């Protein structure tokens, strides 16, 4: 079924009886060409591009609960391509280009809103490093604009520009950055996957891998064993737990990251603002709530909820740049489990076990990568070699010395 204005119009006149479910509830087949473990944004995107771009339709996406209940529904919906290193930036720029056409491609309103993403700086060295990053972005085909203090003041006159600790001296703006509706991304991909013949198997938790002679032949699930030519794991957050079932240790720790929404306010923040020095970033949803977050809690966790000190810390960060939000009340707070990798960058790669593939390590930045992650993972599964823009996301890069460490933090996952 194709959604359109005409469809809405005719349905309105005929009692809205023509709408059906967006996807089937199929029973698992015995074998598939490709099994994707994890029906989150990345897993569903992978299945979609496998079917659409690479003509592989015999695909199952396995999900332990309901689709889209993990990090694709827990993030703060920001999309951007403002990375610096050559291993990262072309990948995220591909993602941004896919975002720009995603609603048309999926025939689903994913509400991509390119309202501009602004990173604030507070001193000269920081300004220098932002100029460097902006130039790197433009070399990779992205957009970047350096704003001085007046430029920021014109956009957000209510910031505390003269704060004695972090006076705001300007910012790096990516005008094409912005937000998207995160649940719609999962639903839109799922709907299209289903149309293309992909089986989405919900409540079908993977309990172990079938590995015979060093070759992965399928998975044992809550609904029985399912065999496949290739098994592609895509469960960022739970990567450590799932890959342990295949006997693999990863350069990843699982951490909890919290996010928050305030009560609905009148429109005030029209873009996305990040205050890196105070560990705070914010945007405003169409419903009016301030959507914000900050640092990860910093200790290993699979609990999907965090502790109070980080909530206090994040809110202090918000107060530091926007003292006026002090009276706004927090409506909701929640946590998600993120794969923190050893250099802050992700993995899209084969594993040492033949026909077992791995996608994960997205740290706190997986949402913006969703389309490109799916595209490049599908490319890897179809061609057995990495896509050009994802060729550095290898599992063995720590052994070979090819880390992609944007922040230069070293092998300390909770600092990335």
């Amino acid at each position, binding site marked *: 079924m194709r959604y359109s204005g005409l469809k809405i119009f005719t349905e309105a006149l005929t009692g809205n009886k023509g709408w059906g479910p967006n996807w089937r509830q199929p029973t698992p087949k015995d074998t598939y060409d490709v099994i994707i473990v994890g029906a989150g944004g990345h897993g569903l995107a992978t299945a979609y591009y496998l079917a659409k771009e690479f003509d592989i339709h015999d695909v199952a996406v396995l999900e332990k609960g309901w689709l889209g209940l993990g990090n694709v529904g827990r993030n703060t919906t920001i999309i951007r391509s403002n990375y610096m290193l050559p291993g990262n930036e072309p990948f995220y720029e591909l993602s941004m280009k896919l975002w720009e056409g995603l609603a048309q491609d999926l025939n689903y309103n994913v509400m991509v809103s390119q309202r501009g993403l602004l990173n604030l700086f507070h001193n000269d060295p920081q300004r220098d490093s932002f100029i460097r990053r902006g130039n790197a972005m433009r070399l990779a085909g992205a957009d970047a604009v350096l704003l001085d203090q007046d430029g920021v003041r014109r956009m957000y006159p209510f910031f505390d520009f003269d704060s004695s600790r972090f006076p705001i001296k300007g910012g790096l703006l990516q005008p094409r950055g912005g937000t998207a509706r995160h649940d719609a991304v999962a639903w839109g991909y799922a709907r299209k996957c289903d149309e293309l013949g992909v089986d989405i198997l919900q409540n079908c938790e993977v309990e172990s891998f079938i590995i015979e002679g060093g070759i992965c032949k399928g998975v044992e699930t809550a609904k029985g064993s399912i065999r496949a030519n290739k098994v592609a794991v895509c469960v960022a957050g739970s990567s*450590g737990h799932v890959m342990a079932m295949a006997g693999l240790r990863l350069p990843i720790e699982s951490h909890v990251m919290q996010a928050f929404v305030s009560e609905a306010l009148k429109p005030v923040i029209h873009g996305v603002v990040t205050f890196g020095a105070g560990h705070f970033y914010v945007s405003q949803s169409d419903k009016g709530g301030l959507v914000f977050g900050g640092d990860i809690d910093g*200790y290993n966790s699979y609990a999907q909820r965090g*502790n109070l000190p980080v909530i206090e810390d994040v809110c202090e960060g918000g107060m530091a740049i926007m003292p006026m939000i002090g009276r706004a009340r927090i409506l909701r707070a929640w946590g998600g489990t993120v794969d923190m990798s050893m250099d802050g960058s992700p993995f899209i790669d084969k594993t040492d076990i033949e026909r077992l593939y791995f996608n994960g390590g997205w740290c706190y930045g997986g949402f913006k990568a969703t389309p490109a992650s799916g595209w490049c993972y599908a490319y890897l599964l179809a061609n057995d070699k990495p896509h050009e823009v994802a060729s550095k996301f290898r599992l063995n890069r720590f052994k070979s010395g090819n880390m992609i460490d944007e922040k230069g933090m070293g092998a300390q996952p909770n600092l990335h």
Partner: protein
Amino acid sequence: MRKGWAHSQTCIERHNNMIIDHPLLGPRDAREFVYLGDASLMNRPDWKDENAAEQFYEYLYLRTNTMGEHRELWYHEHGDRSWLVVTRHTLTHEITKVELARDLGLNVGQNK
């Protein structure tokens, strides 16, 4: 799964934040500490071993990343600056055991 969830609810009721029961100083708020990671970081490989490079790669970069009871290193930065080995559940955040890393290290040394 459900059992773990119910359990975590009682933990929230018991304390609003993680409390680490320091062997010398008693119960302390977790925010006095800095977190390092898996307690296996105490077992530094021997540089004289034949496959030392491989061992150091695994030591530095690979993690077991346990879902369940996790032994981990916390540093009491805003306190007595001792290293602790805390046993904590990564699904519920419940802390079941706290030891001085120094004691454990000495034990290993004496049994060598």
